[in-house]
């Protein structure tokens, strides 16, 4: 039987149609399994777009007035994709003084060592499991939330903000400089065993 030379080169002993049939079957299994999973546990594609906060006046706490809510804009690629939700230390302190809930996105071990006074611990892995974290029962979806981690290269706070946004918490802010800046400023901290 004469076969195309390319088939002989790769040693195909079956008709190419058999391989194509198998390829289509494998692709269909992936699509059907994915579609079924998608139907059972759909994901949200809500972009992050909380209202912007104005810059707080240096040294004046409690005077931050939130800007009017803006229409949600799609997630735009940029050099700083989190620019819309990052807030400064002064802004964070102003929100803290207003009683806004702070969320610590670091690990429970790091949280146990020291934390911003009154903060809730909500690391990313708590949001990736099937169970609803206890912290979400405390936070009102319409309330402002300030999330922090260790500052610097730490991405946990932004990751948690994205997940919370997808869950309907649309006023999440990230204290970009994290707990080191808060601690260095001498703002309220809880250090178990070491006093506040």
């Amino acid at each position, binding site marked *: *039987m004469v*076969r195309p030379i390319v088939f*002989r080169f*790769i*040693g*195909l*002993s*079956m008709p190419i149609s058999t*391989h*194509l049939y*198998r*390829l289509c*079957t*494998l*692709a269909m*299994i*992936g*699509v059907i*399994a*994915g*579609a079924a*999973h*998608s139907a059972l*546990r*759909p*994901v*949200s*594609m809500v*972009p992050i777009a909380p209202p912007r906060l104005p810059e707080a006046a240096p040294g004046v706490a409690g005077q931050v007035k939130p800007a009017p809510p803006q229409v949600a804009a*799609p*997630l735009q*690629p*940029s*050099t*700083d*994709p989190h620019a819309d939700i990052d807030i400064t230390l002064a802004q964070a302190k102003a929100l803290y003084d207003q009683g806004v809930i702070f969320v610590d996105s670091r690990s429970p071990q790091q949280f146990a060592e020291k934390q911003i006074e009154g903060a809730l611990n909500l690391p990313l892995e708590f949001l*990736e499991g099937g169970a609803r974290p206890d912290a979400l029962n405390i936070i009102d979806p319409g309330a402002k939330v300030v999330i922090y981690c260790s500052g610097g290269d730490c991405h946990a706070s932004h*990751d948690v903000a*994205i*997940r919370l946004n*997808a869950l309907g918490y649309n006023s999440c802010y990230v204290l970009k400089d994290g707990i080191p800046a808060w601690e260095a400023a001498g703002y309220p901290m809880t250090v178990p065993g070491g006093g506040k």
Partner: protein
Amino acid sequence: MSNTRPPFPVGGAVLVARVLLGGLFIFAAVMKLRDVQGFAFAVQAFDIIPKNANHVSQLLAFVVPWTELVLGICLVLGLWVRAASLLLSILLLAFIAGLASVLIRQMNITCECFGRFEFPCKGQVSPCHIIRNCVLLAVTLFVLWKGPGSLAVDRQSTN
């Protein structure tokens, strides 16, 4: 044409390539399925699918890892190896094209190729990710060329 068995070193090399590739894609699929929401955002961040077609991004976030899982299992078992490796090659070409478009547009996003586990390329999408996928594509094409190799379910029949 008869189904001639490859010599042992070649069959063994294909077996190693198959298991490594299959294992890697099973791992990648599991990592993505553990955090589908994160992968969905990653798909959206690539900005290849139009914003008004978010349902396609949502579906892709599930279909890609499930397809990877199915292909990975097929490769490890040596089942339908040529079809699986051909489909995997197409997937890898699509991944390479997507990564290249991100680099060309100078976007600052992460790959999420292995969920939160990044290996061997870390951080934002870079030429390293494309080179890694090209290496994987070369291994996949080797499997496609040589067939099931040793210890494969396909060896019970013809390839």
